[in-house]
Structure formats: C-alpha cells, structure tokens
C-alpha cells in the first residue's frame, strides 16, 4: 500500500485537439504514465488552455480562462499535456498574464513548475529510459514542434524513447526544426501562406523515405497529415504517444478504417 | 541648440522616467566609456604570438588572400615584383608615403616605377603598410594619416600590404589597445587624436547580390596580397 501512496498523482491536460480529433492520444498518454508508475486522473472541468485567445490579442479572456485552468489543476503533483504548445502556454506564458494580480501570479507560477509536456515528463521527471511496447518494424521521421522545441526544450526526449522501441528506424529530415506552418489561427487566416510553408515541410518529409511521420502536437500533425493526404503521399502520420504506447491499431491521422478493413 | 534636438532628448528622458534623475548616471556612463576591459574575448584569440601568426595566415588564406613571408625588409621589393609578374601587371606602384615603405630598397628592382601618394582612378596596384593584423578573423587594421591615405585601400584593383609579424595581435580588442597606445600623447587622449578613418579589411572586396553567388572584386580591390616580414615576436 505504501508503494501506491508514493506514486505521483498526475493530471492529464487532454488539450482541445486531442479531445476532439484524436482521443487515442489521450489514452496512449495515460497508458505511458501508468506504465511509468503514476496515478493518472483526468479532471472533468478542464477546457482549453486559452492559447487561441492569447495569440489573438484577447488578454482578458485569456486570463479568465487561465484562472479556470489553474483552479482545476491545483491539487496534482504534476500536470502533463501531450502537446508542447498547450504545455508551453501554461508553463511559459501563464505567469506573465498576472503581473497585476500577485496572488494569481503565485498560483500560475506554482502550476508552471508542475506542468510538463508528455515526453519531457517521462524522460526528464520520471527518468524513464525506455517504454514497454512490442517491436514495430517501421521507418519513422520526427517533426520538432515549435513550442515544444523552443519553449520547453523538447528535442532529445521523444527520440530517446523512440530509440527504445525495437524495430523503429529514425530518418531525420533536413530541417526537422522548421515550422510546419500551422500556427493556430494562422493556418486559416493566412491559408495560402500556411499551405506554402507546409508544402516545403512535406517535401522534406517525403525526401526522408520514411513510412511514418511523428510529432508531439496535434495541430502540426493535422496540418502535415492534411497536406500529405492532399498530395497523395503514402506517408502515415501519428502522434508520438500512440507509437510509444503501442497503440497503432487505429487508422493514422487523416485515414479511414473503412477502406483498409474492407 | 535646435528644437528637434531638445524634443528628441525630452522624449528620451520621459521614457527613462524612473531613472532619469539618478545623480549616479553621468559617472556610470563616463566610467563605462573609459573602461578598457574587454567584454569577452574568444579563446581562439588568446594564444601565444607564434600561434597568432599561424592563425592569422590561415584565416587570410581561407579568404583567398595570398601571403608571402620574407625574412627581412630588404626582401620586400623582390616579392612585390614577383607578384606583379605573376598577375601580368604593369610595374607601376602607387605607394603610401610611409617611412617603412619609403625606406625599402626599391632601387634593387629598377624595373619598378614607384611613386607615392593617395589612390587615383588610374592606379592599378597600391602598396600600403597596415597598423595591425588580427588573428581571430584574419583581419587587417589600417587607418588614415598623412602617410597612409585611405583611398589606397579601396581604389586600386590590387592591394599589397607590407607588414611585420610583430604587428599581428590576437583579438580586435588587442588591436584597439595598440591603436590607443599609439595615438595617445602627453597632452591629448587617443580619442582626441583619433584618425579620420580606421579600416578593418577582411579579405578582398566581394558581393553575393546576384542570386547569392559569391563574386570577388565588387568595388574595392579584387585581390589582396600580404608581404609578411618575419621580425619575430614584439
């Protein structure tokens, strides 16, 4: 019993895009953290981190949303998101929202200290070196999502974990750190530019000869998958958590089970 | 004083509202300007003099600068003549009226037509001294003076620099320190005696303005040649 008591109590911050578009990523994240010895909970009152409002210049609404998030996640040892973007929002930007409200700023800083991106949490906090999953014979390439990379320093962690999966071969892109052009509302507001940026990305992805593209953020993944599918590329697209958790039985992003199962 | 000046300063000072009246500011600024401690000098510059010479040579050569090492001053005219022959150049030299160059035994090479003065449009080859060579980047430091007109550094197609190994320093800061030492006099600071121009020259003139293709010889010298006199360590 005492061993169970000492298990870290972790809240999963699901993120909007996982909630809406890719529930399997949420379940994969839970599995990975439970395998690593955590007690994982998913607070029901959670919504969005507020980033769309923040990046649209709506600071008041952002602060209001942030207060909700801070309250919901107050009682957990750690808060983990399968996203560098939402994770970065909470970890990097929340404290600055409350320069005029010291009490909230303190609470925001407290949350910031407990907030982690999934792969970074596994490797940097839990000191996990490898994941327990069946061999997967596939050539992968990895896109470093901007916020995870530049705000949270996520670069080596997903690669270290992927290396522990037998059979995976990582082929790096020429510029894995270059933005895919998603950019939140940018991808719709400046769709032509966004499409142009992602077409440079897909050229880089295709040139690797990889079968599977991975990344840690649903926004980028939806964008790159959408472009790859439009181009008719055979490259499949998944969130890194799905592969690490061995949960690749569901269709890849932008693909259907119907065609394949029939 | 113009009103524009006053208005610019008024806006600046209102932007500094919290600190503008701090009486310590003028002194802090004076101290900062007078500070001679370098901020951060790369390790690569902090090496013994012999290594600085080697690094300088390697750096300039990587920039397509050619270097002739000679044991003594009297060997310079011969090397200059060789350079002209190699590049099919007429034997006319426009030379800086500097004591180092004036005292070279040009007479040993009677073919060479040497005249002294600033750079003119018809001059194809100039010969000048340098004030220092900076090892960390292969940069020459030259400055204007009565005996070293600036136009010689930029107008001719070929710029030949005659300098001594002892003039090679490690870093930019070392070179500035030497220049301050040279310029400072009993009654005037180095700043008060500051020359009209100080030129740092790192390789021959170049451009990449057409499709990013590097091309040498844009507007300044197409070639830069250094005759280095091996006078040892200063």
């Amino acid at each position, binding site marked *: 019993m005492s061993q169970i008591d000492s298990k870290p109590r972790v809240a999963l911050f699901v993120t909007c895009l996982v909630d809406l*578009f*890719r*529930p399997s990523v949420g379940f994969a994240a839970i599995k990975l953290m439970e395998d690593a010895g955590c007690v994982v909970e998913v607070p029901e009152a959670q*919504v*969005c981190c*507020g980033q*769309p409002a923040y990046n*649209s210049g709506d600071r008041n609404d*952002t602060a209001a*949303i942030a207060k909700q998030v801070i309250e919901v996640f107050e009682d957990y040892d750690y808060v983990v998101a399968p996203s560098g973007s939402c994770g970065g929002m909470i970890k990097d930007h929340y404290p600055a929202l409350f320069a005029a409200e010291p009490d909230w700023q303190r609470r925001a800083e407290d949350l910031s200290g407990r907030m982690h991106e999934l792969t970074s949490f596994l490797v940097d906090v839990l000191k996990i070196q490898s994941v327990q999953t069946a061999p997967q014979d596939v050539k992968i390439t990895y896109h470093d999502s*901007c916020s995870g990379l*530049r705000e949270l320093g996520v670069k080596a962690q997903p690669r270290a974990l992927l290396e522990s999966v037998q059979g995976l071969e990582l082929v790096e892109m020429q510029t894995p750190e*270059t933005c895919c*052009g998603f*950019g939140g509302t*940018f991808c*719709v*507001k*400046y*769709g032509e*530019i966004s*499409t142009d*940026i*992602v077409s440079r990305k897909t050229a880089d992805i295709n040139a690797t000869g990889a079968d599977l593209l991975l990344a840690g953020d649903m926004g980028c993944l939806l964008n790159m*998958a959408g472009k790859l599918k439009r181009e008719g590329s055979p490259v499949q697209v998944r969130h890194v958590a799905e592969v690490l958790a061995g949960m690749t039985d569901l269709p890849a*992003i*932008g693909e259907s089970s119907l*065609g394949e199962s029939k | 004083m*113009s009103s*524009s000046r006053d208005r610019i300063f008024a806006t600046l000072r209102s*932007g500094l*509202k919290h*600190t*503008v009246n701090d009486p310590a500011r003028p002194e802090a*600024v004076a101290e*900062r*300007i007078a*500070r001679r401690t*370098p901020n951060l000098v*790369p390790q690569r510059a902090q090496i013994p003099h012999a290594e600085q010479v080697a690094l300088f040579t390697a*750096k300039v050569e990587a920039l397509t600068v050619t270097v002739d090492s000679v044991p003594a001053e009297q060997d310079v005219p011969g090397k200059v003549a060789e350079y002209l022959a190699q590049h099919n150049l007429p034997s006319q030299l426009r030379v800086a009226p500097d004591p180092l160059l004036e005292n070279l035994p040009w007479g040993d090479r009677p073919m060479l037509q040497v005249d002294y003065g600033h750079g003119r449009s018809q001059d194809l080859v100039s010969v000048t001294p340098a004030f220092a060579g900076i090892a960390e*980047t292969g940069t020459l430091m030259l400055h*204007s003076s009565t005996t070293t*007109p600036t136009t010689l550094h930029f107008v001719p197609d070929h710029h030949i620099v005659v300098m001594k190994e002892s003039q090679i320093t490690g870093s*930019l*800061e070392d070179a500035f320190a030497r220049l301050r030492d040279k310029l400072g006099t009993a009654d005037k600071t180095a700043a*008060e005696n*500051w020359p009209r121009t*100080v030129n740092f020259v*790192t390789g021959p*003139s*170049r*451009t990449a*303005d*057409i*499709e*990013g293709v590097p091309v040498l*010889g*844009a507007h*300044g010298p197409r070639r830069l040649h250094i005759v280095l006199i091996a006078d040892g360590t200063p």
Partner: protein
Amino acid sequence: MSMQITAQNFEANAAKALKDPNLRKAMQIIGGPMASRRVETARELPEFEALRDEGVKIKNHVLKHIDLYLEKFEQQLTARGGKLHWCRTPREARETILALCRSRNAKLVTKGKSMVTEEIGLNAFLEEHGITPVETDLGEYIIQLAHEPPSHIIGPALHKTREQVAELFEDHHPDYELPNMPGVKAGPRSTEPQVLVTEARQVLRDRYFQADVGITGANFLIAETGATVIVTNEGNGDLTQSLPKMHIAVSSIEKVIPNLEDLSTILRILARSATGQEMSCYTTLSCGPKRPEDKDGPEEFHVVLLDNGRSEMLGTALEPLLRCIRCGACMNNCPVYHSVGGHAYGWVYPGPIGAALDPHMIGLETARHLPNASTFCGKCEEVCPMRIPLPDVMRWWREQAHEKQITPPLQRWGIEAWAFAAKHPWLYRLGAGIAIGLLNMLGKDKGRLASLPLAGGWTDGRDFPAPQSASTFMSQYKSKQGAAR
C-alpha cells in the same frame, strides 16, 4: 512621401509573391545557404552564445542611458570637426540632407547602403529636387535601375534573377564598352554574375569620382571617439565616403554604443548572424572630415541622426526592438518570409523585425496584418543575436489591435464567442460534441475532408483530417471510467 507603403495590402501582396517563380528562387537562397552559413560560423565559435548575451547587456545598458551616450557622441564628433544634425521626422531628415547637398551645389550623389535613407524616402526626394542619387551597393543599384524597393535588408536584390539583371544593364548602360576593348559596345549581356559584377564595377567607378556628395548609413555610433561605423562587403561604402568633398552619414539614435570594446563584441555576432561570415570584408570607423595634413578624404563630415518615433519606444513593450543591429537573421530564418519575400510586407523593414517595428512607424491600422502573419514558431527570437523577443512584441501588437478594435469584426467575434464557450465548460462540451459528431460523419469514409465551409483557408491547399471517432476523448474516458466502476 517616404517609401511607398503597401503593408495594408499584405494579403494581396503575399498572394502575388506566392506565384512569383523568381522570388521563390531567391527565397531558396535565403532560406538555404544563407541560413545554414550562419549556423556553421556560429558553431565554429564556442563563445557565440555568450557573446550574444554580452551584446544584449551592452544594448540594454545603453538604452538606460541613451540620452547621455548620445550627448557624449555629439560632443566627440563635434570635437573631431564633424557636425551632428538631429531630425525628429523623415521630412526633417530629407530637408537637412537636401540643404547639405545644395550647399555643395551637388548634382550627383553616390550612396552606400542605408536602410534609414529608405525609411525617409531620400532618393525620390533628391530626384524631385534635381539631384541624382546613385546607389553603389550592387544590390541597391540593381533595384534602383528596376525602380523597386529592397526585398531584404542585406540582400536587397536577391529577388532578381541574373537574366533580369543582365536585361537591366543592357537597358541602362547603352554605352558600356567591353573591358579592355575601347570602342566595342557590349551588346547582349552574358548572364554570368562575375561578368555582371565587372560591368557594375566599371560603370559605378566613374560615379564615385564624379560625385559631389557621398551618403552612407551607419551601423554604430561610438560615444568614446565620435566615430560612425559602416560594415560592408563590396567596398562601395568606403569609396562613397572617401572620394567626394562631403560625406553625410545617415543613421538613427538607437545605434549609439559606449566604446571600442563594445564594438568588438557586437562585430563578432553581426556578420556571423547576417551572412555567416566571421567578419564582413570592410568595417570602417569614420570620424570627422579629413585632417589638415591628410591627402584624401572629405572636407566635410555630417551625421544626420533620425528619431522617427524611436525615442517613444523607450520604456514601452517596444523597447527591446531598439537593440536590433539590422543583421537580417530573423528574416533569413522566418518560414513566412521564405514564402512571401520582403516586398509583401509593404514597407522598409520586412520579416519578423518589420512585423514588430512597422506598426509603430507607419501605424497599426496600416500594418495590422504584419504582426498577425506569423506562426509564432519562435525561430526569429532563437536566431536574433540581440535576443529580441519578436513573437512577444507581435503578440503585444495583436493585443493593441484587439483593444482598439482594429481586428476585423468577424475575427474578433469569432474569438470572443469561442472564449465565451471556453469559460463555460458545459457549453464548450456541448459545442465540441456536436461539431465532432458532424465532422466525423462527413469525413468518416475517407478519414478526411477535401473541403469545409468557412475553412477554405485550410482546405484550398490541404485536406482536413476527420476526427478519429464520433465522440470526444472526455466522453469516451467518462464511459470507460463508468464501466470500470
């Protein structure tokens, strides 16, 4: 009357740029070799990151005492025989320069590269007043012949192909004769860059000697000595400033630094960040007119210092922008810039620095697209030698636009409606459930949608991946939890 502003048409400019094959070629050069040379030279200097920190410290220190440093600079410059002209507005700067040129009865003015003279629209103004300005930086010269503004602050003509340059030279140099072949007109041009560079060298050479006044910019102003500093590769700036009788250096107030040690530090990061060189070919400190005993150099030396709103940035969210040393690394590394090029931004300073600076200089309403047209990927801040938080400044502009209701109503209402839902979890869940059910139904067969109402910006160029299932993670999780109990 300064450079023509088209920033308000950013979307149309960008759409045009996306279809311009020559621009796309140029952008490959900027995003490819230029960006990677920066990485290589930085890697070869282990102290590069620490030097960036030193650079930031220097500039931050100066900004705390900028009034005193400018006073000291003025005092030193004046003591060396130079003259300082303070100009609050582009108009004042133009008038000042014109008056100086007229005092020399100038007909021909050579110009080294200067972004501030672009900012004040100097060339058109001089031409209107009967003075011919000739740009001498090769890139600037090419775009001057083409009557275009620069598309990049250090590679102003990179959007021109060699064929276009050859054509411009054929049109504008009808009398050009082949080198060493007097009397032989050049005729149809070779498109070899080397040959074209030789032609420009030849043509401009005469101009340097004919010019009455030489105008350059200045990257730095040194308080210790009163010197201005230019950094070039071609040597054109030095010829421009040492051959005519008058040298005017046009610069702006934030360029002052304390002393030569500080110059040394910043030079180490400037060229590396800009072109990936360790040092640019020519770095020149200029300080006053020719000394009585000098054999060459200008008889008069003037420094025109422009404010144009910079002083107002002090003590605001925009203050970090005053650290900028105009290296261009932010644009060389910007994915949006790589797609649309410099002209799309519609004013002098393009790319991330322009997106942060232009709204202040030309007005937020005019420039409102610029801070919005960013993915916030953060690469600009990563490469900025002065560590300017460019995305934060762009976000600050978005906040201003939101507050002042400059953001288009539809966008504002959209984000407010969404925010309302996000503040009411039950509403959010309801909306999410409905949307996801709908999208899943539409896209189930293929796993994606080829078009989507209101999201044409996405689906014109990409498919829209359908949700994995008809229910959200939260509802699936809840039913699982229920089943487990």
